[in-house]
């Protein structure tokens, strides 16, 4: 499709003027490319925009101001843990010694980074109650794949080749079933129990000699701790399967519950959720994986090792032949891990426990404020952990206003909407996660706004269904975007839209 209407900001391409920019790089000698056969060279310079630096800077500063971010306001996005991103961590990752280190440099030239990574492996093992940790996975989903591939390697090492299924509760993140498929397994979806928890009986009847693994998120995506987790883990192990824990909700249990101690065989954690590394508009993250004794031999390569003389090094090629291999290039997303390390050292044991205590207290307080008001349904009344589900099913019935509308109306109140329509098991659900870094005043203001919108849904529903009104744009035409995809700028589009300046 092409668009000829008004727009917020010209694109880089609309800002381009021939012969603007330059001055960054010395000109190469004329014969610089004489060693390269002509057919290997490109005819023209690539069609990149030509812009001078001041225009580039204004472009990106103006664009940035169209974004909502943790640094601009409350971002209670359930299952994402949008906590404050400490500025010290950004400073640390940019220290030239860290930022400039080449990933294939000899170990002796990067002892500082290796020491940090080695210490981090130990800290994460302690926090999760696991025996060993790999820092390699680039994100949570890759951590999941790492874990499931290790489980497969474990079964194969025992010549147990019948296991072809992975059991996943229906409330799980979509990454769980997608991961199982990528690893060559069939996903069996297990319905949740009425109280929102895992249905241990349903699991029992699905468990068997074909079960390779069970993937559990604990606390669940409803923000509820699985009370029967001990029983479930026993049943899993009795069936000869292994238990994977999705650590997306680790912020709820720091210092209170260690999955490794409880009997989980493997878990990933998301440094960009629990340990404050920035979400970056969608990434990067890091998804370190912790394992118990059974899976340690299968961890991906390379791990960071401390030799007897106190020096640090990467595992060498072929040093651990049982490994599932490599999930990506190099040791891991070290720049992200430096930030996570800084966060963990800033907190220590007491601080981490306080993180969880305050996150859980804030979630329960917010849930209580909404429950007391009564406009929203609270499907699970028991104490929640770091997040909770509210539902606008009643509001929809009374007024026709949906959760989506309420979410959009929150934008007009200066808040980012919570996660909506997830988990899929709750009708008109919204998953609210306040985190520990929001003040009581913010929590109260958010509760007030939600309640006000509920009333507004009754008195002036059109205002809510037409929201947002104050955002840079109104609701978008997503159907046309998908039916006639325009996924890149074309010069043709440029001629249709002359630059305004």
């Amino acid at each position: 499709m092409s668009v000829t209407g008004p727009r917020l900001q010209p694109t880089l391409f609309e800002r381009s003027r021939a012969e603007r920019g330059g001055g960054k790089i010395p000109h190469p000698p004329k014969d610089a490319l004489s060693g390269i056969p002509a057919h290997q060279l490109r005819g023209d310079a690539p069609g990149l925009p030509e812009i001078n630096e001041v225009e580039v800077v204004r472009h990106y500063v103006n664009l940035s101001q169209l974004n909502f971010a943790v640094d601009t306001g409350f971002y209670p996005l359930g299952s994402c843990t949008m906590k404050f991103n400490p500025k010290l961590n950004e400073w640390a990752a940019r220290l030239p010694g860290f930022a400039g280190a080449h990933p294939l440099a000899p170990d002796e030239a990067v002892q500082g980074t290796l020491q940090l990574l080695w210490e981090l492996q130990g800290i994460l093992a302690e926090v999760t109650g696991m025996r060993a940790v790999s820092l390699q996975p680039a994100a949570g989903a890759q951590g999941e794949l790492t874990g499931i591939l290790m489980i497969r390697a474990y079964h194969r090492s025992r010549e147990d080749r019948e296991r072809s299924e992975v059991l996943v509760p229906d409330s799980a993140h979509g990454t769980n079933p997608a991961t199982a498929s990528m690893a060559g397994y069939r996903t069996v979806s297990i319905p949740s129990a009425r109280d929102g928890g895992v249905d241990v009986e349903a699991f029992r009847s699905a468990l068997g000699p074909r079960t390779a693994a069970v993937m559990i998120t604990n606390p669940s995506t409803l923000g509820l701790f699985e009370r029967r987790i001990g029983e479930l883990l026993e049943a899993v192990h009795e069936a000869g399967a292994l238990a994977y824990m999705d650590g997306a909700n680790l912020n709820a249990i720091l210092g209170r519950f260690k999955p490794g101690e409880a009997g989980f065989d493997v878990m990933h954690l998301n440094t960009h959720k629990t340990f404050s590394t920035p979400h970056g508009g969608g990434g990067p993250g890091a998804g370190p994986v912790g394992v118990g004794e059974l899976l340690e031999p299968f961890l991906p390569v390379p791990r960071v090792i401390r030799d007897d003389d106190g020096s640090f090094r990467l595992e060498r090629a072929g040093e651990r032949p049982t490994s599932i291999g490599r999930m990506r290039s190099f040791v891991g997303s070290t720049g992200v891990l430096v930030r996570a390390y800084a966060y963990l050292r800033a907190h220590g044991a007491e601080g981490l426990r306080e993180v969880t205590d305050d996150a859980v207290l804030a979630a329960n307080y917010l849930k209580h404020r909404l429950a007391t008001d009564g406009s929203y349904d609270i499907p699970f009344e028991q104490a929640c952990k770091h997040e909770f589900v509210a539902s606008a099913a009643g509001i929809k019935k009374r007024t026709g206003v949906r959760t989506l509308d309420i979410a959009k109306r929150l934008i007009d109140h200066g808040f980012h909407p919570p996660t909506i329509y997830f988990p899929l098991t709750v009708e008109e659900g919204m998953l609210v996660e306040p985190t520990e870094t929001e003040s009581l005043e913010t929590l109260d203001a958010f509760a007030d706004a939600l309640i006000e919108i509920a009333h507004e849904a009754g008195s002036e529903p059109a205002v809510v269904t037409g929201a947002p009104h104050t955002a840079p744009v109104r609701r978008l035409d997503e159907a046309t975007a998908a039916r006639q995809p325009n996924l890149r700028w074309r010069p043709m589009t440029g001629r249709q839209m002359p630059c305004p300046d």
Partner: protein
Amino acid sequence: MPYGPHTPADREQMLAALGLTSVDQLFEDIPEALRASPLGLPAAEPELELAARLSALAGRNRADLASFLGAGVYRHWSPPAVDQILLRGEWYTAYTPYQPEVSQGTLQSIYEYESLLAELTGLDVVSASHYDGAAATAEAALMTCRATHRDRVLVSRAVHPQYRETLATYFSGGLSLEELPLVAQGELAGTTDLAALERSLSDADRPVAGVVLGQPNFLGLLEPMAEAARLAHEAGALFVAVCEPVSLGVLAPPGAYGADIAAGEGQPLGIPPQYGGPYLGILACTEPLVRQIPGRLVGMTTDLEGRRAFVMTLRAREQDIRRDKAASNICTNQALLALAASVYLAVIGPHGLRDVAALGAARARELEKALVAAGAHRAHDAAFLNEFAVRVPNARLVHRRLLERGVLAGLVLEDVLPDEDDLRDTLLVCATEVTTPAEIARFATALEEALSGRPPVAVEAGAGAAGAASPGRRG
């Protein structure tokens, strides 16, 4: 807790509202037998002390070396505008743009990234980003299997060894991966053996889904990409080019030589080496493959009032909707690094990018000359851009000796490619636009000394890559 706002009075007030006396009551749902043992971690560290600890650790890394190490990760000049824009909280503290009304900055920046990379690669569809070059290459190979309904992929042994290891891991779920040998002798030594490719493609019982080659390849050499693409297509297979984005300032783009998919590592576009990441996985494809490409895509549309706006689109391919039938499990990507690459390309511009690539090539030729004079000749004859292998007797030992002299003499190839007999006693070295003539002279002098067995002369202070003090400082 260093970053929490709650005062004791705030906590009291919240507990009182809940009718509780202690926060412990909120954790009674954890069965007693499963409650955690105490956390055995060091005490919290105040910011001042923690900053000193982090500085000391960073200082243990050697920043004084004259480095000729590339092998997939390259030092480049990143204009300060890039990092200063990245440091705006509106970019780095935002989440995935699921609420487009308050995420137009991120969404437009991703659309622009897709457009910039489409220009560079000559392919129309570019994903919003993948984890790194290795993971993007693995996803590209998986795409060829989905698109052709075949399960056999051929990958050149001159594709980065760590990418091939990653491919093998991703393929361990039941797909078949075979390696293509390299030409051993003559002008084309070190490039992919096309005769072997033709033989592998001709097995009618085992049709090939995709063929994967690197350009430049891991040894720095230029591959016959157009011929390889033609052979792949004749057998009904797709062709995947693993490319390095700065080189695309001067080299023919994948779209021009018939690649269906391009994958690559975006780190050279303004992103620091930082010991392995976060980097930027580039993944691009032709338009007919749009529904096979994994990861987020951003498209242009309008809002209710007809204003141009951007939104994530074709979402039904993704894990949160399609679950076990998704194209990939990828969720978190590398949006902030894609932003870095976009700002870099915008500031550097098309002619600047050409200059970066061409100046690197010129420096590499100077390096070649200097090394030949010092007694190290190229290991291959094929054309290269800015990276090449040289033969050095006792390469591993010489590499170590040079490190003592403050020179990081590239990569010892037999450490990463132990099965390639031709590569025994070779070093893979590179130059870029930041490589200085003084560094090249320092490398050549040190090499000459090392080869002649002379003891090192005192290393000149200040000649190091980052101008750091105390050369030779050890961790």
